[in-house]
């Protein structure tokens, strides 16, 4: 720790931030007279109330606070916070999401407007806010933006609209819309029977959308949909049939402690693409590993950890490096190696495999009754699956052999009596798999 925190903060931000590198800024002063622009972070005792985060690079992020103000924060490589400053003090009526645009512009959305904020005079403060989109179908009848914005790899800006009918008499459907900056056109890219509460987009076009179904209290729906890349004519009508966001996975309420999870975020972990959902009240961090089988998306759902502070939002700052934010500021969401937990669930030909973060107690794990596997049919009803456990040599993988049910069910695996070989108790003893195809 430096004896002069003020100095180290300033230097850290100046040297480390591409945000203020002159060569990244259009119309920057000519070489020879170039001046590196920077925010001088002074010691700041205030804790930001974070509602959305978008990474700038591996150590800087933009964030949105609960008042709708945009801030910029800097972190050390281990995601310890160095400091933060406002990038705009204007209190936008913003949904809890923001996206990075070019030139360090920031995209936000209220239920009624998609807005892009610019720092036009390059004084490191947003000073121009352009209303990109204010008109869409049935806006005057109450159709609003429910989630977004998200910038996709094709330069489009995506946001979700509440259910509406395109033609009189059609059933109302929620739609994910793409705004095309080159023309200002607005095109639907997916439809959904259920409103979209939040969504994330992987670079290859895989969309993860949280769907709203308040009357269903046993779980929460997550839809996985592949968005096709726009064709040569980006303004061409959406493909027919339009991709439909089906409720691909059910996140059981018992995994979230009945706390509604926030919007999803994709991240990399151990060479796999995963999805994280944070639960602000219960502090549960839910991990999903999406898998495609038979043209359908399914996957495992497990508890990754519990955050030390309430977390409303999360982002992947750099590959595998997760940062959360909430009322008590920023929270690094690293995977704690000391936590004994289930880390994976994979289907195999005759059963399934469970992975653990630490070797299990072999004798306890092989006892009858240490595991139970149930198949809950999506159409109703449940059955117990008979399994025979076997332990892989390193003690971190357990093979549960048995006849799995046909597709169309949720597998619930409970490891009720499986301590680690050092006697640690599992963080959570249950893990789930939504099975649509084999």
């Amino acid at each position, binding site marked *: 720790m430096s004896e002069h925190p003020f100095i180290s903060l300033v230097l850290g931000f100046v040297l480390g931030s591409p945000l203020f*590198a002159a060569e990244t800024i259009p119309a920057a002063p000519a070489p020879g007279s170039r001046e590196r622009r920077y925010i001088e972070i002074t010691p700041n005792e205030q804790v930001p109330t974070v509602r959305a985060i978008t990474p700038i*690079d*591996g150590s800087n992020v933009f964030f949105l606070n609960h008042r709708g103000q945009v801030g910029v924060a800097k972190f050390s490589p281990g995601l310890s916070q160095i400091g933060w400053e406002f990038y705009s003090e204007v209190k936008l009526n913003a949904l809890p999401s923001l996206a990075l645009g*070019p030139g360090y512009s920031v995209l936000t959305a209220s239920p009624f407007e998609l807005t892009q904020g610019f720092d036009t005079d390059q004084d490191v403060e947003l000073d*121009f806010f*352009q209303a*990109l989109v204010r008109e869409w179908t049935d806006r005057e009848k109450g159709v609003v933006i429910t989630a977004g914005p998200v910038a996709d790899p094709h330069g489009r800006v995506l946001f979700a609209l509440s259910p509406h009918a395109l033609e009189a008499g059609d059933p109302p459907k929620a739609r994910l819309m793409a705004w095309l*900056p080159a023309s*200002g056109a607005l095109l639907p890219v997916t439809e959904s029977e259920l409103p979209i509460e939040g969504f994330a987009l992987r670079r290859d076009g895989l969309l993860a959308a949280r769907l709203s179904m308040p009357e269903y209290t046993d779980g929460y729906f997550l839809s996985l949909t592949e968005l096709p890349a726009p064709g040569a004519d980006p303004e061409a009508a959406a493909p027919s049939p339009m991709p439909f966001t089906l409720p691909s996975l059910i996140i059981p309420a018992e995994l979230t402690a009945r706390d509604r999870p926030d919007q999803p975020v994709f991240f990399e972990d151990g060479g796999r693409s995963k999805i994280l959902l944070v639960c602000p009240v219960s502090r549960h961090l839910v991990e999903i590993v999406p898998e495609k089988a038979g043209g359908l998306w399914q996957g495992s759902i497990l508890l990754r950890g519990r955050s030390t502070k309430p977390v409303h939002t999360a982002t992947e700052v750099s590959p595998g490096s997760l940062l959360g934010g909430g009322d008590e500021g920023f929270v690094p969401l690293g995977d704690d190696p000391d936590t004994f937990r289930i880390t994976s669930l994979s289907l195999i030909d005759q059963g399934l495999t469970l992975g653990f973060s630490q070797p299990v107690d072999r004798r306890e794990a092989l006892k009858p009754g240490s595991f139970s596997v149930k198949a809950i049919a999506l159409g109703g009803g449940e059955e117990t699956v008979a399994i025979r456990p076997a332990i892989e040599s390193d003690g971190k993988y357990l093979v549960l052999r048995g006849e799995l049910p046909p597709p169309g069910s949720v597998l619930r695996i409970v490891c009720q009596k499986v301590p680690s070989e050092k006697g640690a108790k599992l963080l959570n003893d249950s893990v789930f798999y939504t099975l649509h195809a084999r």
Partner: protein
Amino acid sequence: MPTVVHPTSLPGFLVFLGACGAGMMNAQVTPPPPTPALVVSSVPLRLDLSRRDLRNFLNDKEALAPYQLADGSVADLHDVFAIGSVSARWAVFWDARSCRLLGILDLEAPPESPLPAGTGREEKTGSAAVETDKGPVVPSPYLFKATGPFPLAKSVGASGDPRYFGFRLVKNVPEFLYTSGSLSIEERLWLDDGGKVLRQRFAARDASGGMLISVPEDWQGRVTASVGTWKGAVLAVPKESAAEVILSYPLPAASRAAEPSTPETN
């Protein structure tokens, strides 16, 4: 060596290209205009700017027209700009839907009484007390409420509904950018003179016929203008002066607003 992210490598690069090419007519490509010279000794307040949803407080039928819904009801106000200051007792509201100054709220006044059943919203003025057969109710806490159609609707070149484009900050003062017909308008609002005056600056491009700016009739004679000639509640600004006209609304420092004084022209 710090990692450098070039804007072209960022997702959404086209957003910027599109913004410049497709619509940023009033945007950052043009440097913000200089802060106007003010006609009085000026102590601008540091402003707090937010956007918020409000219950629709307008009463005037024409001012409510942009908010009229198909079922006959009136839409609430969404994403309204609220301009205030910790040093002022006033909150000023401007709406992008109707592109106009909607109201000035006295933050120290008691809340507005709910409108009595059957009176509707067709009061004649915004700031007057509502008189019913049950007797007077609490006066409106709004010192100013928009009345009549879009304030620049009578200007040559203005037509149809105004279209909001965005806003920018000029020395922390919000400047709203919108179009009406062939007019491109910049409208700036700030609290001045220690919070005793609301200034409203209009600048119009392509105003070959000048500007006609309407103010609510109950403000006739109280609003002063840096240029132009008043005819009743309408200010006529010649085309030579359309690049900048500043209206000044006196705000009482204490107690409620005084009754309108004798109209004056300048």
